[in-house]
């Protein structure tokens, strides 16, 4: 079984995110990390590939490759290879352009199952996987909290009231929540092996896609902030400050 996992490299979320002055594109340093959201997809892919005999896991990613640290993180977990599409023409890509590039790269690799996260940490459009599925003409089994593969693929799809069981034939795309599996930490051997694993770098001309970017950011302003109020150190009576506040608000 051939599993493709869509993974994104993002600026370290612990660092401050900044935008380039005129284009309003996110500044992407040379060293980026694997989006934490995608560690779940990678782990799920590894587990499913292992269950199926001779399964493989290929990573597909679009964006400035930098020093590939984020991609190496995913390879160190155990993925077999990576395909990274990096092209200056793709800076400022909107959701559809991103999906068209990913779909083209995935088709080029071939697949039985595509796995993605539910929303990326830096962009969180939350629609790229569904677009990829439509472009590949496969079902999108989204928001999975569990995934099982037999003849078909069956997931628990998170809903506001619980979950639905959803089933489809392969090939298919699954988007996974952070509750789906517990991602492994790379071992020392994994980290060493990752350095030797194949990483193909593609540009737009390798894929049959004409990138048209229709969404343009014209202006960015800070969101209105709320000001802080009173801070009380709990000395054993902190709860009384809350009681007083609730009284003042006539909640009690």
């Amino acid at each position, binding site marked *: 079984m051939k599993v493709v996992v869509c993974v994104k490299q993002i600026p370290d979320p612990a660092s401050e*995110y900044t935008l380039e002055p005129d284009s*309003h594109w996110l500044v992407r340093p040379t060293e980026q990390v694997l989006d934490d959201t995608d560690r779940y997809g990678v782990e799920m892919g590894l587990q499913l590939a292992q269950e199926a005999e001779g399964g493989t896991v290929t990573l597909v990613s679009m964006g400035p490759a930098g020093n590939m640290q984020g991609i190496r993180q995913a390879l160190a977990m155990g993925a077999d290879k990576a395909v990274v599409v990096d092209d200056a023409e793709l800076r400022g890509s909107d*959701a*559809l352009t991103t*999906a068209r590039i990913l779909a083209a790269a995935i088709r080029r690799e071939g697949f039985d199952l595509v796995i993605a996260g539910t929303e990326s940490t830096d962009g*969180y*459009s*939350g629609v790229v*996987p*569904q677009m*990829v*599925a*439509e472009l590949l003409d*496969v*079902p*999108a*089994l*989204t*928001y999975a909290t569990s995934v099982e593969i037999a003849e078909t693929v*069956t997931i*628990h*799809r*998170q*809903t*506001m*009231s*619980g*979950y*639905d*069981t*959803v*089933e*489809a034939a392969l*090939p298919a795309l699954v988007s996974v929540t*952070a*509750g789906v599996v517990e991602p492994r930490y790379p071992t020392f051997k994994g980290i060493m092996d990752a350095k030797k694993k194949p990483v193909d770098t593609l540009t737009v001309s390798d894929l049959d896609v004409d990138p048209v970017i*229709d*969404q*343009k950011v*014209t*202006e*960015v302003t800070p*969101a209105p902030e*709320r000001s*802080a*109020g*009173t*801070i*009380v*150190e*709990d000395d054993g009576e*902190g*709860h009384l*400050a*809350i*009681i007083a*506040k*609730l009284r003042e608000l006539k*909640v*009690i």
Partner: protein
Amino acid sequence: MATVWVFVQESDGAPSTLGLELLTKARTLGDVTALYVGEGSESAFATVGEYGASAVYHLTPADALVSGPVAAAIAGLVAEHSPDLILFGQAYDDRDVAGRLAARLERTVLSNAVDVSLGDTVAATHEIFGGAQLAMSTITGERPYLVLARPKSFEAEPSGGPAPTVTPVDLPDVGAAAARVTGSHVEEKEGPQLEEAAVIVSGGRGLGSAEKYALIEAVAKPLRAATGATRAIVDAGWVPYAKQVGQTGKTVKPAVYIAAGISGAMQHLVGMKDSKTIIAINKDPEAPIFSVADLGIVGDVNSVLPKLAEELERS
């Protein structure tokens, strides 16, 4: 006049609140048609009319996974009627349908909008960086424009419109892209619901374990409050997703929001920062939640919450 279509999903036999919010906004932008997904009923359609839709396309996916056939059907309607704008909510099925539809129509989708206007092109204000900043974006290219708006961006208000004309729409067979819903597991919904409650008590990872969520329930009960949670503890399986507040959960605006053991990540704040009063309990004085709190208690939830519950029971 512009033609605006609104994706309205059914929830418990009636149009969802999110759908009604979108209809309210849509009627300021043009002539409104609802894309109604669900069983449907005369009263449900009447409500959709009251909130501004003059027409309804009724789509009934039965046991099919919504996204494939509904997106294909809407694509067919678009080819026939050329709307200017299609509004969706930032919600699961909305995202799935909008994403698939966008790929079919070769138009992008603008996500996380909190406001939208329609002129020569569409312009939307949308949250970025977890809500820390607001960006203004436009979409160029051909119509329709597709926009996903965050819940609670617009207040749902009826306009007293008449019952709309309803047209049932056949769902096409999507072949290899089809999926089936074979079962539905519904978790018990007890007590006040997050969207309606005047008081919400929410817990985060600082509670330490799933069992400690009982502390949140103990404080909520005497206040007749709804209970909420961060994504961290939903993902950990401590509480169901229905309790999640934030960017990828519910957006709430209660009179009082009590956050216990919650760090206050941007993605959580974006779902609750418009609460009238925020009270936070966290043992770390540097926790970002304190920067939005009207009252902050620097302390241990294990000590503050039980005493608070006891005091509330007494008063």
